[in-house]
């Protein structure tokens, strides 16, 4: 083929078919085409189980209780005026933000402790501390519910041993709020710990050595080396946890079912109560859709920061 004029063996007809084949092959071989085809199953799954339900929820939220008439934003306006729903917004924000901050702080501390435990022992502790995260949440929350029980509370038994009076853990608004947050923190901290531990291990040791020689003490190393190097992981983990904590259902549903006096309701449990238990599905849908703008707002800022820092740091 050095002269550039030779045709494939088999004559002109096969040359033509070879030409067609090449066009097909070219189409199939284009990276973007291959990529799209490989992603297609996932795209279909997402379309079926995410996009369709999301749009259906938006559609539902604009119907009346009997689902016979279009009411526009009526359900949303109704919810916003309702005192219980205002409590739900407050409690959802309090629950998610407090729990995520505590999980991040505790996870970071535990990851640091874990990072400094040598070799084999580290694996044991890591395994033990992951236990809360791997137990099905509904089961572990039931255990917590028993421990908070007004009559048989393990915590109250301990308090009694030290001469303190019983505490109505799930019976008083603010204490119940504290309990739901505490259980969420107990459950979610291992996730933060394992993510931060991985991030800590990826910080090059030489940066610590360089900073030690530059004159940094342990606290300065934390603030000038560790935290800046972990900012992306911290941001992503916080965002991810914020989303799951905001949408939490199990803990509140099992521990308090939203009580006392609706003080512990979050969006998901309130949507369940209004939509399923009270039979007002459009109102429930409207309630759950309130999460969307809040989370979209958080996601936008967090991901923007992550992208910016990745560009800055990536070598």
């Amino acid at each position, binding site marked *: 083929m050095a002269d550039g004029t030779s045709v494939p063996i088999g004559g002109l007809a096969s040359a033509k078919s070879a030409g067609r084949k090449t066009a097909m092959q070219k189409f199939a071989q284009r990276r973007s085409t291959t990529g799209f085809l490989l992603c297609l199953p996932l795209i279909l799954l997402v379309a079926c189980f995410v996009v369709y339900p999301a749009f259906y929820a938006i559609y539902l939220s604009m119907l009346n209780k009997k689902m016979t008439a279009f009411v526009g934003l009526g359900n949303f306006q109704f919810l916003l005026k309702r005192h219980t729903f205002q409590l739900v917004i407050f409690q959802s924000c309090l629950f998610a933000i407090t729990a995520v901050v505590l999980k991040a702080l505790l996870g970071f501390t535990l990851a640091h402790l874990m990072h400094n435990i040598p070799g084999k022992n580290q694996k044991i502790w890591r395994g033990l501390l992951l236990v809360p995260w791997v137990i099905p949440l509904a089961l572990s929350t039931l255990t917590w519910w028993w421990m908070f029980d007004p009559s048989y509370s393990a915590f109250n038994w301990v308090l009694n041993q030290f001469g303190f009076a019983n505490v109505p853990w799930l019976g008083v608004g603010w204490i119940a709020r504290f309990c739901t947050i505490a259980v969420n923190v107990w459950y979610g901290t291992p996730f933060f710990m394992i993510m931060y531990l991985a991030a800590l291990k990826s910080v090059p040791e*030489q940066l610590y050595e*360089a900073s030690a*020689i530059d*004159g940094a003490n342990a606290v300065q190393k934390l603030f*000038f*080396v560790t935290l*800046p*190097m972990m900012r992306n992981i911290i941001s992503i983990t916080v965002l991810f946890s914020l989303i799951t904590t905001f949408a939490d259902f199990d803990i509140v549903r099992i521990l308090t079912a939203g009580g006392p006096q609706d003080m512990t309701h979050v969006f998901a449990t309130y949507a369940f109560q209004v939509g399923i238990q009270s039979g007002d599905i459009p109102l429930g849908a409207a309630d759950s859709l309130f999460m969307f703008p809040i989370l979209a707002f958080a996601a936008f800022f967090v991901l923007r920061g992550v992208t910016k820092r990745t560009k800055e*740091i990536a*070598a």
Partner: protein
Amino acid sequence: MAEVSVRKVVKEYEGGVQAVKGIDLDIADHEFVVLVGPSGCGKSTTLRMIAGLEEITSGEIWIGGDVVNDVPPRDRDIAMVFQNYALYPHMSVFDNMAFGLKLRKFPKDEIKRRVDDAARILDIVPLLDRKPRALSGGQRQRVAMGRAIVRNPKVFLFDEPLSNLDAKLRVQMRTEIKKVHQTIPTTTVYVTHDQIEAMTLADRVVVMNGGVIEQVGTPQELYHNPASRFVAGFIGSPAMNFLPCRIQDGANGGLAVRVTDSIIVPIPPARVDRYGAYKGKEMVLGIRPEHLFEHRDHGKPGWTRVDLPVDVVEPMGMETMVHFFVEGTPVCARIDPATHAAPGEMLPLTADLNQMHLMLPDTGRVV
């Protein structure tokens, strides 16, 4: 500026592995000392112990007249340049260089002045606002050096700083480092496995092997008077040739080195007394490739002709390497590029035995 002393320093890791086996070393103020040796010889460990990044198992390290065994790195007033540069990726070049000064609470204008001065010396002024990821390897290395310079420390420590650079840049940066030391003559300890780097940079070279110091000396001393077979083989490129030999009686009451039945060369009279005690003993003859020449009938005293069959010829431009085998032992000669040597042909060679080294086969000690 300060002198550094290492006294009987031992580093033993868990499991009893000794990386450094009780070394002694005194480094004078302003001196540029290079620790050189193969991987695992303990040179980096020694440097890290001086830096305070590794604990010392026993012995003492002195910096500027003080024992610093228990002094943390930040209080030793040292600066270190790492192999991977260890620049803080989230900080600009300016902040990287200023970090140590900021931690030591220097006034802002003083920090700026020092960073600007260092940047000027290293020719990195236009890079001050960039992040490390936007720099090339050579520029990163300059920034790492800048970070060391701005602190004006008592001692500079370099841990294989040029290993990650390509060959051309390495030569260029080597010159830069030498220039910086001439401008700012701070006591410097430099670790490398590259003997050329060691020879070109050092006031004194410390050759380490297996956790001990084989020899300390100026580059010339190490080249001309190696103390052991290890040093003789490590310093110089291509490496010195080593040939098993026997010392025997030579002509006119002198001595001769018998390498093979056909290669028996007289030892220069000036060395007869020195080697007399080894007559009749099996020894190792060491001769550098550059002390083997193509024979041109204009020999000097101590130059002896030997004819050898050529195995491989490597023209390098300014010189040509010719490889032979002498009874199975490889030998290399660095000869004039005008040679007509061709593989398979005999080449008459002259050895300058004034430059020979004789070693004990068991200990490797040069006699």
